[in-house]
């Protein structure tokens, strides 16, 4: 216990140093522990899904909108990059950037109805939206190649440097993007914008009465979340070097959701913990691959039962407050129905 406190104090004093140290250690992984290409693949996937889960966390964890359609953002990013290369021969780097922007645009479009919808309706809308996007991928054969998908995509090349997939370079490349995303998000969340998002999560009407432009910040929230999702999608395109609609099904969206929830929403570290934890578990349970989704399901339900805020979730959110109630067994019943 005492050591725990000391570690905590140390962490609080040298937070930035600790995070940089973590990233350096992660970057050294391919040189030390992770030797086989299989392990490298898992590590790369962990980094890519950590980015995707961070994007979802911005929407679900910080502004409290329940988005189930994260796979659509990944899909748009991935397909934009893929199609631009495949149909128009656009350089991969340009496709990469345009993919991220396209996802941001989609996020903006999806955010328009959120100005009027909330709660349940919004959730159903994001779900329908995700399914519509996937069906477009399947059915618009002349552009997307339908269920066959786009194969043999070129390696990503930036300024003449080629990032070979399946190598250490790709892991580092993805890691740099994760660091970048975390840096931008931490700056963003400590600003007026981040505080506005959290105020929307904790009480939309209260935020409105304090002069927060809720509609504007909600849109911005969806755009930022979608762009990060699109970034993860682009990374997936150039990692697998082929894309097909089954990469972006609703189950995939739920998968990312499970990472965000289990890891903890409302903190920057949560989705990373979740992604590493869930993918690690997936690899361990590979011998029982039929039970993979069953395990995910039990993980989601278990997290909700034990601590809705997740492993490393925000301590100041309404979900965390609720889990405190569960533990204290006090005031939970008297607590008036909260319609959030």
């Amino acid at each position, binding site marked *: 216990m005492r050591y725990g406190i000391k570690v905590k104090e140390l962490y609080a004093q040298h937070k930035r140093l600790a995070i940089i140290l973590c990233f350096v250690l992660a970057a050294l992984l391919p040189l030390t522990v992770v030797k086989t290409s299989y392990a490298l693949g898992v590590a790369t996937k962990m980094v890519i899904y950590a980015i995707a889960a961070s994007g979802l966390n911005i929407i*679900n964890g910080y502004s*409290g909108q*329940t988005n*189930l359609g994260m796979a659509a953002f990944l899909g748009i990013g991935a397909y934009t990059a893929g199609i631009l290369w495949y149909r128009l021969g656009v350089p991969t780097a340009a496709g990469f950037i345009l993919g991220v922007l396209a996802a941001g645009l989609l996020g903006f479009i999806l955010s*328009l*109805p959120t100005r*009027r*919808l909330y*709660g*349940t*309706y919004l*959730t*159903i*809308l994001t*779900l*329908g*939206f995700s*399914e*519509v996007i996937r*069906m*477009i991928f*399947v*059915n618009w054969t002349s552009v997307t190649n339908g269920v066959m998908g786009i194969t043999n995509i070129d390696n990503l090349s930036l300024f003449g440097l080629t990032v070979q997939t399946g190598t250490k370079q790709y892991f580092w490349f993805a890691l740099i993007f994760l660091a970048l995303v975390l840096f931008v998000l931490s700056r963003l969340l400590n600003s007026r914008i981040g505080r506005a998002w959290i105020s929307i999560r904790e009480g939309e009407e209260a935020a409105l009465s304090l002069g927060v432009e809720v509609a504007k910040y909600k849109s911005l929230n969806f755009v930022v979340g979608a762009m990060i999702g699109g970034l993860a999608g682009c990374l997936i395109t150039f990692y697998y070097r082929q894309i097909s609609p089954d990469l972006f099904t609703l*189950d995939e969206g*739920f998968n990312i*959701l499970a990472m965000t*929830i289990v890891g903890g929403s409302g903190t920057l570290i949560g989705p990373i913990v979740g992604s590493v934890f869930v993918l690690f578990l997936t690899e361990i349970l590979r011998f029982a691959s*039929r*039970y993979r*989704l*069953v395990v*995910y*399901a*039990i*993980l*989601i*339900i278990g997290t*909700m*039962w034990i601590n*809705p805020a997740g492993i490393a979730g925000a301590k100041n959110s*309404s*979900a965390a407050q*609720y889990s405190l109630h569960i533990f204290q067994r006090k005031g*939970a*019943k008297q*607590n*008036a*129905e*909260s*319609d*959030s």
Partner: protein
Amino acid sequence: MYVLQQILNGICQGGIYALIAVGYTLIVGIVGLITFVYGETLMIGAMSVLFLYKVVKLNIVAAAVVAFFSSAIVGVFVHKVCYSRFMNAPRHISLLCTIGCSMLLKNLAQIYCGVEQKKMPGIIKVRSFDIGGLYITNTQLIIMATVIVVCIGLSLFLYKTKIGLRLRAVSQDKTASRLVGISVERDTLIGNCIGTGLGGIAGVLIALYLNTTSATMGTMFGFKAMIFCVLGGLQSVVGAAIGGFVIGIVENLGIMFLSTTYRDLFSFVFLVLALMIRPEGLFVRRRKQ
């Protein structure tokens, strides 16, 4: 003539859809929380009949009863896992629980019942009648009859019995019902079980109508249930039933103009548009705020 035939088929399919929608609205109305498990209760209703038929030769009434009770038992499980603990919690918690529950049931069903499509047993001997050029099978007639009987039974239950009165009270205001001495916990459980039970009956009817069943059949119908209810305004039972009928007929007419691959796409586009334009439902008068 072809159009009339399609409308007739659409009415039959719409009847099943209406039953699906009624069950879903009951759950959403009484429990007050949205559910993603509903499609799986349909699947469990159909699967339980399929498996019991290997032991006992069921007739249609027995099949409906079996489906109702097996799905209602699943309803108890769902209520314990997803709702009763989270009545006062932020809504997304129980929503995520239902997603987890749906994944759990669907994948367990896939593991224990197999992933392939299964043929339904011949509970009804198919015969078709010719009424002035229109063909109608006795399957369709029996399905329609079942839907009508179940709906009449449900409305009698809701409006003529004491439990029905309690359930309606709970769906209107939980705090007020608690104040007058209704056990909200117990009544949401009952409401949820009836809703999932109706889903089970609808599942059997769908499986008989399409003559197949599979472990993943629930996903599509779960989404469709959501679409009907959004069209009907999420809370209104009658509105949801009309929503189901309309979609059933539109789908069957749509076959004439569109290829089947686009049919599901259009129902989702319809959902997105309906949510964007009239989120309070098509058949509900707009509330003044």
